[in-house]
């Protein structure tokens, strides 16, 4: 394991300190927690948006804190959902009286911990709603299992719900935008290499020098198949087609080509070229494209593609101002 860290058990602490130090005018930490909130929180009368999850997915989620996006991010231990008390602290720190929306990626841990926090917050008289993001089409859509994972498409939920909240909308309205985004976003990823949880010290899985895994989750959970490494065009095609099979994207879309951590931006642009060609072929219009690292998996090499189907309302929300450092609009 080669990492630039001090103590494998202190990485989240050190990261949060370094993050807040880097953004002293826009971020603050809730004392004695790994909760990071807008410096000006709570914003009176505005619905607050809280997200979070295990650490190791940076810039998700703390990079999305800012006017027009998140009010708080709860940083769990690496790959470990944060605990209910931490989520509760976040909710309390940002509630401006108009209620709080929790944006939860669909993993058992996140769902359980955020749900418990929501119950605790309601007991304290705070109005809380939640939305669960499950954009990963690599996983079968089923009500008998945990269901689909939440991956990079989550960023669109942050952005659009955040824009709606910034516009002064009610909790119900913000939640309904978030649900609309969830209903209209699909993603799929792939990996070339594993990653190592610092405190574990060894990679969480193995891929041979000529192998890749299609459909990989952001914690290294496997995908649809492990096969020989393919070309960028083939990879882009596999991911895009699986997404298009799952949902009718005809009309206009936003595209997100996301790097998992170790993949050079060059390669993401190569993938983007093919995604554009594929969508053009199908007559799907691309309204906006985002290429970069938005939802990572430590130092995993790989990428994901997300599509968000847009209508006039969603376009306006996508274009609204965001001052979040990792998603400036």
């Amino acid at each position: 394991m080669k990492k630039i860290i001090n103590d494998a058990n202190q990485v989240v602490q050190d990261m949060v300190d370094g993050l807040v130090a880097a953004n002293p005018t826009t971020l603050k930490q809730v004392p004695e927690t790994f909760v990071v909130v807008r410096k000006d929180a709570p914003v009176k009368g505005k619905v607050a948006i809280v997200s979070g999850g295990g650490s190791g997915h940076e810039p998700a989620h703390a990079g999305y804190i800012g006017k027009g996006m998140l009010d708080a991010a709860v940083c769990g231990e690496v790959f470990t959902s944060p605990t209910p008390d931490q989520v509760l602290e976040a909710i309390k720190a940002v509630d401006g009286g108009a209620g709080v929306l929790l944006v939860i990626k669909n993993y058992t841990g996140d769902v359980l911990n955020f749900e418990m926090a929501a119950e605790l917050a309601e007991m304290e008289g705070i109005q809380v709603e939640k939305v669960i993001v499950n954009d990963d089409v690599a996983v079968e859509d089923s009500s008998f299992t945990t269901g689909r994972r939440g991956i990079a498409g989550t960023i669109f939920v942050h952005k659009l719900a955040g824009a709606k909240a910034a516009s002064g909308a009610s909790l119900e309205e913000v939640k309904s935008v978030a649900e609309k985004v969830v209903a209209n976003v699909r993603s799929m990823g792939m990996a070339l290499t594993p990653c190592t949880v610092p405190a574990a010290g060894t990679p969480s899985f193995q891929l041979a020098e000529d192998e890749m895994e299609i459909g990989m989750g952001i914690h290294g959970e496997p995908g649809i198949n492990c096969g020989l490494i393919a070309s960028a065009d083939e990879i882009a095609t596999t991911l895009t087609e699986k997404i298009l099979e799952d949902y009718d994207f005809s009309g206009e879309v936003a595209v997100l080509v996301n790097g998992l951590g170790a993949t050079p931006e060059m390669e993401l642009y190569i993938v983007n070229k093919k995604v554009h060609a594929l969508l053009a072929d199908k007559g799907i219009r691309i309204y906006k494209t985002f290429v970069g690292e938005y939802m990572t998996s430590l130092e995993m090499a790989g990428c994901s593609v997300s599509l968000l189907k847009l209508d006039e309302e969603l376009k306006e929300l996508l274009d609204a101002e965001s001052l979040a450092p990792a998603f400036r609009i």
Partner: protein
Amino acid sequence: MELNVEDMIKWFGLANEKIQENKVYLTKLDQPIGDGDHGINMARGYQEAVLALQAKEYNAPFEVLKDASMVLLSKVGGASGPLYGTAFLKLSMEVKVKEVLNLQDLANGLEAGLTGLKQRGKSEIGEKTLIDVWGPVVDYFHKAGFQPDNLTESARKAMENTKDIIATKGRAAYFKEKSIGHIDPGSASSYLIFEALAEVIKEKE
């Protein structure tokens, strides 16, 4: 056989020792069919729980269980944190007020814990989760002829049996058929916890 406050604290202390010893093993179990943090999570949570229990005076077992459950809830994280937190909270509530716990109390308490686990996890026996150890253990407690060694044995068997199950809940569910052949990490930590309980009971006999 009756367990008092001290025994409860001993249970968590012993379980903690086992979890610390098996931290790497539990994490390794969570690598092929999870995200490689279960040992880290459990070791962090149990360590904190033991520290918290040492720092306070208790009058009844349910108080110990409640405090432990709160620490686990706020220190383990992941899926296992709220699950173990819930299980011990339900166990605590079930045995409330009692100053000592006999086998019947434990059986009822663990059954309440199991029910809590199922509700919290929206899951059932046979989904390759720690429930697959809690279920058989509760059954064993309800049987006649309790023997600590047999408790350990039935927990161990239950843990081993999770190898053959296809996961449908938790992170391992993404691995589908590939989850076969692997022990569920949460079942392994539950096994350690029941092994510790068996040892505490054995000492009392």
